[in-house]
């Protein structure tokens, strides 16, 4: 079922009024959504229960300081009996689904509201643009120059349409200045729209073409990126050059939505070194680089979660040394995903490849 939420004040207002009605009509107990806080222009994942506070919600802002699946999974750790509406980007939903597979959270209390995502900007760039012109949450969808400013992972993202949602906020084929489309993807979603009195209409004619064009464009960009990255890492020496500036700060791991270990193996003693062995090795080889575990770290992380990487790009965003972590995760990850015919976040029932074994695997 597809409907259009009209608002003279634009799509953001339309979304707010939808969320507000969810609260006022007691369809949910709280709404999880990116909203501006008093401290910064950067919208942060927030949990809103009172309808008047919805005015701060800004889910269409082209920025995401976190992959909000991490915060969402805290709320969904167990079924509290409270109903929650969660407004999330496609990559956030896909990460959330991976976390559900790993029993880190449950979806029972959630009404998932996905956003069709045209990408996010790096935080600094967003703040700068926001300062220059207010209302970027609408102008972003109209100004082609701004679209050029999205971060590199978004630039190659071909999963801009959310999957597995109840409702999807649709920005394709819609003039954001006049409202936003909403599509019910589940029975729950349809019920909500019907209850609110929206009627089923034909999606705008331009929608399909826009989606197709973007898909085409993104796939092309992705293959360019993957080719370039494959070249950059094609032997271990090049890869070392690529990550030469790695400080081993673990920011990428902390930002990663599917890296959920309570304690990373890299902070344990598993990779400790005996001084005597290092000295013996140096004697034998003439010279060794003292181990920093940077290469080990990235390769191990790839082996660990390469199959589950949702390509959200937050690892690159947070790297203080500007290493394109996401680039090689996307490149290598997709090889692993192809090998097992696995796509993270595609289907909640799709088993994690390493947990299924068949006789004919030889």
């Amino acid at each position, binding site marked *: 079922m597809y409907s259009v939420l009209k608002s003279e004040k634009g799509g953001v207002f339309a979304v707010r009024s939808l969320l507000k009605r969810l609260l006022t009509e007691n369809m949910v107990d709280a709404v999880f959504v990116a909203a501006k806080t008093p401290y910064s222009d950067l919208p942060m994942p927030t949990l809103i229960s009172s309808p008047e506070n919805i005015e701060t919600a800004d889910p269409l802002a082209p920025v995401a300081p976190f992959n909000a699946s991490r915060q969402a999974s805290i709320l969904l750790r167990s079924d509290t009996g409270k109903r929650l509406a969660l407004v999330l980007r496609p990559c956030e939903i896909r990460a959330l689904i991976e976390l559900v597979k790993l029993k880190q959270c449950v979806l029972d209390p959630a009404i998932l509201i996905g956003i069709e995502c045209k990408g996010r900007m790096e935080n600094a760039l967003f703040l700068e643009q926001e300062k220059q012109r207010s209302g970027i949450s609408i102008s972003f969808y109209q100004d082609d120059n701004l679209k050029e400013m999205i971060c590199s992972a978004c630039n190659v993202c071909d999963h801009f349409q959310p999957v597995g949602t109840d409702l999807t906020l649709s920005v394709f084929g819609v003039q954001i200045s006049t409202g936003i489309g909403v599509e019910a993807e589940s029975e729950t979603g349809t019920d909500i729209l019907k209850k609110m009195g929206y009627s089923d209409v034909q999606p705008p004619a331009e929608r399909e073409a826009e989606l197709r064009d973007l898909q085409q464009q993104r796939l092309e960009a992705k293959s360019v990126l993957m080719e370039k990255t494959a070249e950059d890492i*094609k032997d271990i*020496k090049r*890869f070392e050059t690529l990550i030469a500036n790695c400080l081993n700060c673990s920011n990428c791991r902390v930002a990663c939505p599917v890296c959920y270990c309570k304690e990373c*193996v890299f902070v344990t003693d598993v990779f400790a070194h005996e001084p005597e062995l290092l000295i013996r090795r140096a004697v034998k080889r003439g010279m060794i*680089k003292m181990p920093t575990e940077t290469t*080990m770290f990235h*390769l191990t992380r790839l*082996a660990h979660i390469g199959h589950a990487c949702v390509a959200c790009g937050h690892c690159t965003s947070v790297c203080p040394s500007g290493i394109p972590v996401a680039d090689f995760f996307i490149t290598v990850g997709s090889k692993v995903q192809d090998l097992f015919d696995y796509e993270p976040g595609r289907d909640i029932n799709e088993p994690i490849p*390493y947990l299924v*074994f068949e006789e004919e695997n030889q």
Partner: protein
Amino acid sequence: MNDQFEPQIIALVCNWCTYTAADLAGTSRLSYPSNVRLVRLMCTGMIDAKYIIKAFLDGADGVVIGGCHPGDCHYINGNLKATKRIYGVGKIMEQFGFEPDRLRLKWIGASEGLEFQKNMAEFIETIKQLGPSPVKSRMIL
């Protein structure tokens, strides 16, 4: 390639089949090149991706994993569980320039001393053909 090149090979083997096969190769005095170093584990199913990555980054020229034939696993299906993981790591290492042939998975049963000898000799030959590992003489980690 390089006549002087003597590869370093790590063999991660399960206690019940391939380690026993190595013992049998020993008792049968089936000699093979001395480049192989066996690391005994209880089951191929306990081989962590980290071991393989570590071995390569520490300078191993080849890693061979030996376990029981499918259906013969002492722990029912540990070897099958291992298979996918090893393929996965192999795929990743391949992206970073480690030729797929440097990582080999072989089922060698407890009674196959001869198989063990043949496989080791053959694997060393393969690695000699490939030449030293890209990380040789460096330490990356």
